[in-house]
């Protein structure tokens, strides 16, 4: 982006605000609601390829997904996070930040009242609902929704750049990358056991082709037995589940998912006691802790390769 362009926008905004001030106030303020002191802005491209205009210095940000909250904490910009969702439970400090509702039904009034520069959202469907209202109020909407471990790493960098914490982010990325390299080094040439990832016991939900978890299991030295199923989180026929006979079962642990479904009672996984529980938050949130989830899977299904 050229600095002339930024300057032009800056001048334009300045002119607009002067014009605004010169008016008697009432009529103009109601319509444009420009921030009192227009901050310097720049254009960035989000994960959906949308061009978004954000302040060069983001001072107030809102996250509408737990994975985004964790990412913003990880890049060292938590001090600028002024609003999160009720699902945002990690790290511990996230719980004390103002809540703006949950991911699918955030409270727009609360969001606007917090006067953020940018609202980070995780799904395309969210955008349609708030884009209009937020942009009218001069709030940028930025979509970040990585769908692979590579995407998680590159989005960490993008967010780090947005907040101007590139140094800290680079250190973090190097660390994450070396942990991933270490896992693949240890598992090089190992046979891949068939893994069934149970998302919920009743009804039986698992992961399909479009879930990023399929690739995570692959990277953790396994093979998802449901990798061919079109869908990201299919409700699976129990007949098929029984016939799949996985070597290992991973329970994405939540309240209704603490034991393997009964259809697995004669599976190889049950016979060999290869049923493992991993915190659902590590497997379902495309944020930095996905690497922890990947390591946990690798340790569980290849215990002999990770003897300390």
């Amino acid at each position, binding site marked *: 982006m050229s600095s002339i362009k930024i300057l032009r926008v800056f001048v334009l905004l300045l002119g607009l605000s002067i014009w605004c001030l010169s008016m008697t106030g009432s009529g103009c303020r109601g319509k444009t609601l420009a921030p009192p002191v227009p901050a310097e802005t720049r254009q960035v491209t989000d994960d959906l390829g949308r061009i978004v205009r954000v302040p060069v210095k983001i001072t107030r940000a809102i996250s509408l997904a737990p994975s985004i909250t964790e990412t913003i904490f990880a890049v060292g910009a938590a001090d600028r996070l002024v609003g999160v969702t009720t*699902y945002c439970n990690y790290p511990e400090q996230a719980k004390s930040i103002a809540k703006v509702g949950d991911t699918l039904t955030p409270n727009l009034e609360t969001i606007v009242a917090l006067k953020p520069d940018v609202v980070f959202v995780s799904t395309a469907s969210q955008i349609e609902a708030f884009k209009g209202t937020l942009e009218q109020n001069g709030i940028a909407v930025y979509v970040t929704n990585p769908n692979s471990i590579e995407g998680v790493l590159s989005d960490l960098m993008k967010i780090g750049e947005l907040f101007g914490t590139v140094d800290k982010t680079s250190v973090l990325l190097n660390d994450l990358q070396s942990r991933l390299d270490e896992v693949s080094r240890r598992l090089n040439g190992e046979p891949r056991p068939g893994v069934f990832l149970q998302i*919920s*016991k*009743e*009804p*039986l*939900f698992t992961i399909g082709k479009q879930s990023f978890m399929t690739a995570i299991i692959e990277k953790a030295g396994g093979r998802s037995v449901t990798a061919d*199923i079109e*869908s990201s989180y*299919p*409700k*699976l*026929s*129990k*007949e*098929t589940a*029984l*016939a799949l*006979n996985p070597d290992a079962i991973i329970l994405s642990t*939540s*309240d*209704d*998912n603490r034991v393997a479904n*009964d*259809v697995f009672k*004669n599976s190889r996984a049950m016979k060999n006691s290869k049923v493992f529980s991993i915190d*659902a938050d590590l497997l379902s949130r495309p944020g930095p802790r996905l690497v922890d989830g990947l390591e946990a899977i690798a340790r569980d299904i290849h215990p002999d390769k990770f003897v300390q």
Partner: protein
Amino acid sequence: MKKVYQARTEKKLRPRSFSRAIQVGIVLIVLLFIVLTASTLLGSERLPLFDLSEQQRSIFYDVRLPRILLAASVGASLAVAGAGLQSLLRNPLAEPYLLGVSNGAALGTMLAFIFFDRFEFSRPVMAFVGAAVASFAVYQMARSRSGMNVERLVLSGVIVTTFLSSILVMMTTLIDAGKLRSFTFWLLGDLSQATRNGFYLSLGAAIVGTVVLTWQARALNLMMIGERDAFDFGVEVNRVRWLVFGVASLVVGASVAASGSVGYVGLIVPHLVRMSAGSDNRLVVPFSAVAGAIFVVSADTVARTAIAPRELPVGAVTALIGAPLFIYLLRRGS
């Protein structure tokens, strides 16, 4: 006067002809047999007819068969409950869902689900309690000094149903995300959670319901003419009301606990039966049981196989098949 009226009544209720009723009965039995056979042969996994491996036997006996049998007994239960309520209330829209019985059962199951998850039998018991409490509430609301009024009863049913719906929505919003997911699926009707015990319970309820309502069929026939007339003919109107509501709560409670809210069955199956076999409840009740079983087993076979190895919610399939079928028969009949 009384005698003439009775004769007219009997004539009105008599099936179009006796042989017609036998025909319909035979067709239903044959259809049930065909549907049950076909559904045991279909599934997301292909099974050979003979020489099943241990795993294939497990697929057949532990997964497929219990689910088909549960579908059959849930279908029979909901259909007889609908048949009984429609006759009792002389209202073609009367069915367990409209009268608050289904939502009462759903709320009971949800409470069991949240608070007594460890006890397997808490769900059917709470579902029955919920259904019974909802029925009782509807019944009390509909009573006035001048006695029971059918319009008031249907109105109360609708009000209780919507009230319970909003409580269900409130609770799904409040309980945490993990539990919510399985529950919202379950609210749409889900036969994949079939267990042996759930099936025995549902089958027992279906048999009791069909027998009791068939036994009360004469009283129901007279109630269809009008409660005053039924009373004049010696029907203990109050007792029949309690019996029908009690049976509806029992069968709906058992079905909802085992499979969630499978919609449409209680509404359309009894109508389809009346269109083909006449309105005599001595036939409508047992025929509805068989037709309900056929309907739900067919719908669930579609749900299990259409996008295998994924599954559709059975409640969506019953509505998808049921609505056009019903409209077709309604237009053909008139």
